[in-house]
């Protein structure tokens, strides 16, 4: 007793207090105790460590033991701590600065390697030099002492965190194959420590804080885009394919975009350097020449990089180059258009540029402006979201026997982590989720057309809607091209997605996606009768064909004569075709 009071009161204070308290009646003492308790507005936390604002439990596992322990720990922590549990495979080192507390449970695989799924996180952490001074952490390391490098993954993570300035919440515990007892002890220690922590009041009221930030949305435009850096660029499909599909994540400030599922972003791309070089070489320019664009003096190189279309030649330009297109090319006006469709700008420059004197300013005056490209957002952007997902197919096309790369898709597909990308929001009002929170949704996607549906179903998974969902997806091969397969699996398990049909045309060339409607007539008619909305997203040619087939089928086979009309009239048919 004496030792505790010594820390709080001076000796004389303590004596005075005791003298006073001795004079009080029982009733007075009781009143005083309540008064004192109520008058202290900001009680000090028992511990001096930082309050818990974002607590994450992360596990790295080969056999599932670490995951099971992570779940056990999660259950034992006080529920007001709002803890989330994640696989180390899904954790990025860049995110760590956003956490206040991180509890890591990881095994060591084989002789000193991290679990396979945790390799990326582990390697990134070991190379990271970014300070983590606001992070509180603890590590539970699982291992097998018959190996030389026992528990080394957990140990290295622990040491690296310390090196980066993070605070150890409780000491690391290392467990052998009989891990249950030491693991339970670690869980108890960590829970005990955390249950005495305060939660950060700011963390529980994020909506309020962010509402003021929404005003920025309208300020981000084509001419004043947001610069978002690339967080991740993953090839989803077979990397050996000529036109692989990429999943790209862009770092955005939370709350800055007002984008609903179904909306897109405009991407301001740049022409590939080799394309610019080719144009400069044909015309004998160095690129250092000065030009004026919109009243601003810039170098020709900078102008060609981001402002002008180096693929398509305008009629105006062809006329300027040839003085008289019809005479020189021997074609009439409509034939000129088709000529331009078949000939790349560089072809035309090669053929005609030497006939006329062309200054750098002449060149840019006649070039078409480089148009931004729209890409559908593939995730839900709410006030908390700090990453914007795109699904981009690297596009290539052939013109007059030569292969060319699509400007924007190449630009995005080639983007490395950290590269800046200029984007602005773009609304697709006719491709939003229905007002009804319960109307069934029939979602038909071809290839990258799946992107907006990923956002749709994420929105349903967020718990704000109850629309039943039937997703029909078409791609080339099951094994390689099942875009976002693991996402759909988890949505199906949680019943946020009710039915999934897939058609892979290279595996089953004898079928089409339409077969899955024809083999489920009861579901199709039942859902339509229940007011289903039909969404078509992706390749224009294929989906237009499918739409015709479907219309015919619904009228002739399901005998729902007026259904297609009402689908259109009631705006229950939504198309996003390209």
């Amino acid at each position, binding site marked *: 007793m004496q030792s505790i009071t010594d820390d709080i009161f001076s000796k004389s204070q303590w004596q005075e207090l005791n003298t006073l308290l001795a004079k009080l009646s029982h009733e007075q003492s009781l009143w005083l105790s309540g008064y004192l308790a109520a008058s202290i507005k900001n009680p000090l936390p028992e511990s001096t460590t930082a309050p818990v604002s974002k607590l994450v439990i992360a596990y790295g596992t080969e056999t599932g033991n670490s995951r099971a322990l992570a779940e056990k720990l999660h259950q034992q922590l006080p529920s007001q701590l709002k803890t989330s549990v994640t696989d180390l495979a899904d954790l990025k080192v860049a995110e760590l600065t956003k956490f206040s507390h991180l509890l890591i449970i990881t095994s060591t695989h084989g002789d000193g390697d991290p679990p396979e799924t945790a390799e990326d996180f582990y390697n990134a952490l070991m190379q990271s030099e970014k300070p983590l001074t606001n992070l509180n952490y603890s590590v539970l390391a699982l291992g097998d002492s018959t190996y030389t490098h026992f528990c080394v993954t957990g140990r290295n993570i622990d040491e690296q965190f310390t090196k980066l300035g993070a605070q150890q919440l409780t000491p690391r515990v290392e467990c052998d*194959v009989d891990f249950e007892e030491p693991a339970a002890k670690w869980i108890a220690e960590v829970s005990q420590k955390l249950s005495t922590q305060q939660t950060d009041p700011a963390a529980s009221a994020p909506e309020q804080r962010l509402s003021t930030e929404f005003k920025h949305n309208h300020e981000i435009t084509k001419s004043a885009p947001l610069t978002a850096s690339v967080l991740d660029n993953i090839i989803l499909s077979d990397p050996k394919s000529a036109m692989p599909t990429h999943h790209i994540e862009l770092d955005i400030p939370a709350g800055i975009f007002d984008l609903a599922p179904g909306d897109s972003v405009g991407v301001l791309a740049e022409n590939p350097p080799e394309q610019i070089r080719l144009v400069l070489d044909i015309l004998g320019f160095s690129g250092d020449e000065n030009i004026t664009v919109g009243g601003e003096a810039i170098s020709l190189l900078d102008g060609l990089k981001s402002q002008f279309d180096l693929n398509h030649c305008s009629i105006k330009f062809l006329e300027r180059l040839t003085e008289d297109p019809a005479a020189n090319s021997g074609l009439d006006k409509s034939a000129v258009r088709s000529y331009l469709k078949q000939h790349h700008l560089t072809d035309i420059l090669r053929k005609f540029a030497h006939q006329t004197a062309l200054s750098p300013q002449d060149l840019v005056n006649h070039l078409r402006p480089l148009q931004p490209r729209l890409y559908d957002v593939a995730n839900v952007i709410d006030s908390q979201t700090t990453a914007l997902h795109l699904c981009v197919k690297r596009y290539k096309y052939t013109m007059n026997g030569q292969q060319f790369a699509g400007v924007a898709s190449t630009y995005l597909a080639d983007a490395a982590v950290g590269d800046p990308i200029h984007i602005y929001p773009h609304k697709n009002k006719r491709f939003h989720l229905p007002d009804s929170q319960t109307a069934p949704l029939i979602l038909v996607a071809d290839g990258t057309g799946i992107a907006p549906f990923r956002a749709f179903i994420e929105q349903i998974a967020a718990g704000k809607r109850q629309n039943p969902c039937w997703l029909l997806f078409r791609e080339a091969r099951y094994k390689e091209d099942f875009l976002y397969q693991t*996402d759909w699996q988890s949505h199906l398990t949680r019943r946020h997605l009710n039915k999934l049909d897939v058609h892979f045309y290279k595996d089953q060339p004898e079928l089409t996606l339409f077969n899955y409607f024809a083999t489920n007539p009861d579901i199709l008619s039942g859902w339509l009768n229940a007011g289903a909305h039909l969404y078509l997203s992706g390749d224009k040619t294929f989906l237009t064909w499918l739409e015709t087939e479907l219309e015919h089928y619904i009228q002739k086979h399901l005998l729902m004569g007026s259904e297609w009309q009402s689908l259109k009239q009631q705006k229950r048919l939504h198309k996003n075709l390209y």
Partner: protein
Amino acid sequence: MLKNNPPIKYLALDIDELHDNERVKQRSQFLRGTLNASLETVESASIAESDTLLTKFHGIYQQDDRDQRKTRRQRKLEPDYQFMVRIRIPGGVVNKSQWQKLDFLSRRYANRGLRITTRQTIQLHGVQKWHLRDVLQGLKQVGLDTIAACGDDSRGIVCGINPDHSAIHRQVYQIAQDTSDRLIPKTHAYKEVWYQKPADTDSTNEEPVYGPLYLPRKFKVGFVIPPVNDIDVFAQDVGFIAVIKNNQLEGFNVCVGGGMGQLDSRDDSYPRLASEIGFVPTADAAKLAEIIMTIQRDYGDRIDRHQARFKYTIDRLGINWFINELTARYGKALRASRKYRFTQNHDLIGWHKTDREHWQVTFNIDNGRISNALQDQFQALIQDLTGAIRLTPNQNLQLINIPDFAKTTLENRIEDFGLSALINVADQSAYSMSCVALPTCGLAMAEAERYMPDFLTRFENLKTAHDLSATPITLRVTGCPNGCARPYLGEIALTGRAKDLYNLYLGGSPRGDRLAVCYQQNVNENEIFKTLDMLLSLYKTERLKNEAFGDYLVRSQTLKTPQSSQQSLPIQEM
């Protein structure tokens, strides 16, 4: 051991006290589970987790390409799920049309050719879920199936015998077939799931012997005729060693409780040589195998799955208890074991004449893998075959039943198709085996089959350096301690511990009758070769005439023989 307490009858315990797998079996309605639904699921190329246990009983293992796991995960794809389909070929003999069907199915639906296993069968790797029924229905057309090729049941019975060798060989082979028929599961589920036959409504108890929980773990039975111990009879749960007197098959010596599998992380885990318990007359062999299996069914550990193998049941309850129980169930005591002698556990590579004046020719197949060009060469060779094909327990391929007049033609064809090198083997590869391991086996911790060619090259160079290239040494490499290539009987064996790290076992015999000893733990290739270099140099100078490497290591006391191998047979005189 508390021998005074009555032994636990696990089957009498409440199902909730038993291992999770037991409940999966119980709920499966005799191996049906939710397999039909699993095969239809479109969002995944895998089947439901509980069904993955059940397909094993149907000879089918769900695997994935582990080389692809990480990148596929990043690509938001599930693992590259695929299935290993193991055919049931008791005794390992197939006819020409069966071989040709296997060849066809492997080319159409599998991805790495045909893999001959240590249990004399063929495995297909990389079969997609959508094609499983096609494969199994294709096999059915030639009278083959995959029943009990894996799972907690009596696995494919091995029989180290060319049935064409003599009348007695034919007889032993036939007994192996009968035993297989008697021991395999009888559930109608196989036909319903794979052949899509209507449900059999009559049967109330589809498994009169097994019951709904089947066995606690896998159960392996094998037959062998001395002097060749190619099946490694002492690694079997039940081994039958043929006893021949006056050119008559009298019966079999019976040995019980062998098993390779162990876990490096558990002290109560070990490989065990089968113990000989007596002699059974020919007519009773199949029946006796079934009785032994029912003892394991009733007393095998169904709580701790690792302790569920028959070898642990015997050690837990004692061999004397076991013999008493067997006597009670059999109705009489076994007679005393007869004398016999094993001289080798490897195959006789090349041409050999049988007692019936027919020929057999054995091809040395590296790691049992017949793929790529080799598959085409055998496809061509087998087109005109008059005999049959036998798969050996050393993962080799043997053509049998070749009449004298057909020999020259076959010899020429072997030459023409470029296969002569495989029958003229004096080299080390004929004495070497590995399991499949990475990338498809879920248990593997290190490479085995894919590593063997490199290891072998270096090992052959080392032998040459010590002037030992003509001396065979049994070499076995596995990707984990589970023991699929029977490593604990090798003269030299590597069992995988982690990428590029192995435990080094030494001192098995070339007869498969002595356990190897763990000599070094967690060693890499350079450390292994440093050790082998040192030991081979001692062996070269100190060996007795014709003394095998493993025998030398034990005689010279280079190895301390551990307790578990003291139970083994005495080292035989060479």
